[in-house]
């Protein structure tokens, strides 16, 4: 049975195989987002000494597992209200514009040593350009709704994302200098050789800067001024209801998973195993744990997602001027200094350049 499936699979043309993978990855992402919302509410509940969602079950599984699916059904059945004075075309288009880049970026992310949907040379540039396009959904949602609160949220978010994109880009320049390639698969491969040869060790400041910028790019706490409830109700999506609101929700959580995946790929060795060479040879379990595989990438993504939730439960929201100060006056100088440090290291053949 399995053998016949694999022969049929390899007989398929390349475009059919990529299409199949695109469908699989998209569906997996949507399910991950559903489970991530549940996990977020559970984790924050535990941190705040509550239980979190614990009523809806499916198939008698753990209590609470059905909660995200019940939420989806609720949001699907609710009425989608389009404000009278809104710009209808852009109002409907905005959620799609927020969602598409969050999914399209997964095309170039190497999920395992063999599996990447589009193995393109300029993968890092592709990632940067698509993540910068994601801001259009937020700006247009804020403008098209024709509401003061929504517009304020959109303006805050646009300024914030443009500011933090620069720090993000400079942090990736550091990664580029180590790997000498824009291809994400090559970037992972140049980090081989145990956790200490992953990029985070020599690029620790850039790693921190990248993750903080990722938090700001996804509008997550403590940088969630775009939807700060206590100040501007719900920010850019205040006029959205039902499934249109759910699409913004989906885009935000898909972006969280994306930033976690990118942090793992750029700084934490992607699908490389942290135990490589540390376990005794032989035995199926040891072989599996030492081999590079999707398992390790998934585990790293999970750890960073937990960090996202942990930060949200711990820190209060930044004041807007402090966000701007952090982005322009702290993070960007740090990246510039570290790029200069890398220049010196590479000239003297230290660290990743020691060959």
């Amino acid at each position, binding site marked *: 049975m399995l053998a016949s499936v694999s022969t049929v699979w390899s007989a398929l043309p390349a475009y059919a195989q990529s299409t199949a993978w695109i469908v699989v990855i998209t569906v997996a992402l949507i399910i991950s987002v559903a489970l991530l919302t549940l996990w977020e509410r559970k984790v924050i509940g535990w941190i705040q000494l509550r239980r979190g969602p614990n009523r809806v079950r499916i198939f008698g599984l753990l209590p609470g597992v059905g909660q995200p699916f019940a939420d989806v059904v609720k949001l699907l059945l609710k009425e989608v209200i389009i404000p009278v004075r809104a*710009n209808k075309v*852009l109002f409907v288009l905005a959620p799609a514009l927020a969602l598409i880049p969050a999914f399209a970026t997964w095309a170039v992310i190497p999920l395992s040593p063999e599996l990447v949907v589009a193995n*393109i*040379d*300029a993968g890092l*540039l*592709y990632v*940067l*350009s*698509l993540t*910068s*396009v994601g*801001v*259009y959904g937020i*700006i*247009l949602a804020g*403008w098209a709704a024709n509401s003061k609160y929504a*517009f304020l949220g*959109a*303006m805050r978010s*646009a*300024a914030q*994302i*443009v500011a933090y*994109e620069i720090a993000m880009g400079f942090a990736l320049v550091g990664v580029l200098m180590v790997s000498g390639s*824009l291809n994400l698969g090559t970037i992972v491969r140049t980090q081989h050789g145990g956790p200490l040869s992953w990029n985070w060790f020599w690029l620790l400041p850039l790693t921190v800067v990248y993750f903080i910028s990722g938090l700001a790019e996804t509008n997550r706490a403590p940088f969630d001024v775009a939807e700060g409830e206590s100040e501007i109700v719900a920010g850019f999506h205040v006029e959205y209801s039902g499934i249109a609101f759910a699409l913004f929700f989906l885009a935000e959580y898909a972006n969280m998973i994306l930033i976690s995946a990118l942090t793992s790929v750029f700084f934490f060795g992607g699908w490389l195993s942290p135990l490589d060479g540390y376990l005794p040879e032989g035995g199926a379990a040891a072989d599996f744990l030492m081999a590079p595989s999707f398992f390790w990438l998934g585990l790293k993504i999970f750890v960073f997602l937990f960090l996202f939730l942990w930060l949200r439960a711990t820190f209060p929201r930044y004041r807007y*001027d*402090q966000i701007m*100060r952090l982005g322009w006056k702290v993070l960007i100088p740090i990246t510039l200094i570290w790029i200069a440090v890398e220049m010196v290291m590479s000239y003297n053949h230290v660290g990743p350049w020691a060959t």
Partner: protein
Amino acid sequence: MLVEVLFYVFATILIAAALAVIISKNPVHAALFLVLSFVTSAAIWLLIEAEFLAIVLVLVYVGAVMVLFLFVVMMLDIKVEEHRRGFTRYAWLGWITAVAVIVEIVGVVTARRFGVDITRGAAPWPASYSNTQALGSVLYTHYAYPFELAAVVLLVAIVAAIALTTRTRRGLKRQDINRQVNVQSTDRVRLVKSMDAKSP
């Protein structure tokens, strides 16, 4: 065959979007059509295997420049009548620009007639060819000085723009972030013994 079909599809979208930029009355719509024409021209550049230029076009123009542009356009309260008044007065400038652009396009398209063949022909590059790497190696060796000169010119422009727009008003109260961060509770609250706090 497929490439030709794709080219004509993208070219049609590009021309329609470019027309919509100048026709549409709403400035936000015009800006968004400009975004669409940038994205479509990036797609056309991908067809001639200039992937670096295509992606950077999206990264710089769509991701940064147009976001800021949209940002400003959205906040403007544009009165259409006021702009219509100047329309005929500056029409001659528009015509000159249009004629210049048409002459340039004709010149590029018919360049082969004058014996300066700058196009490479239709033969695709081998799979190992990296557009980004080729561009980088030319830019940082052959054209290192012009490249750095361009960078300095941009830097000067940034400094000049900031210098022109910053104004310091006298008596302006500013926040000192270090003082804000380093503040202690003893700086703000002073505990005093109340007069009748005799009994424990």
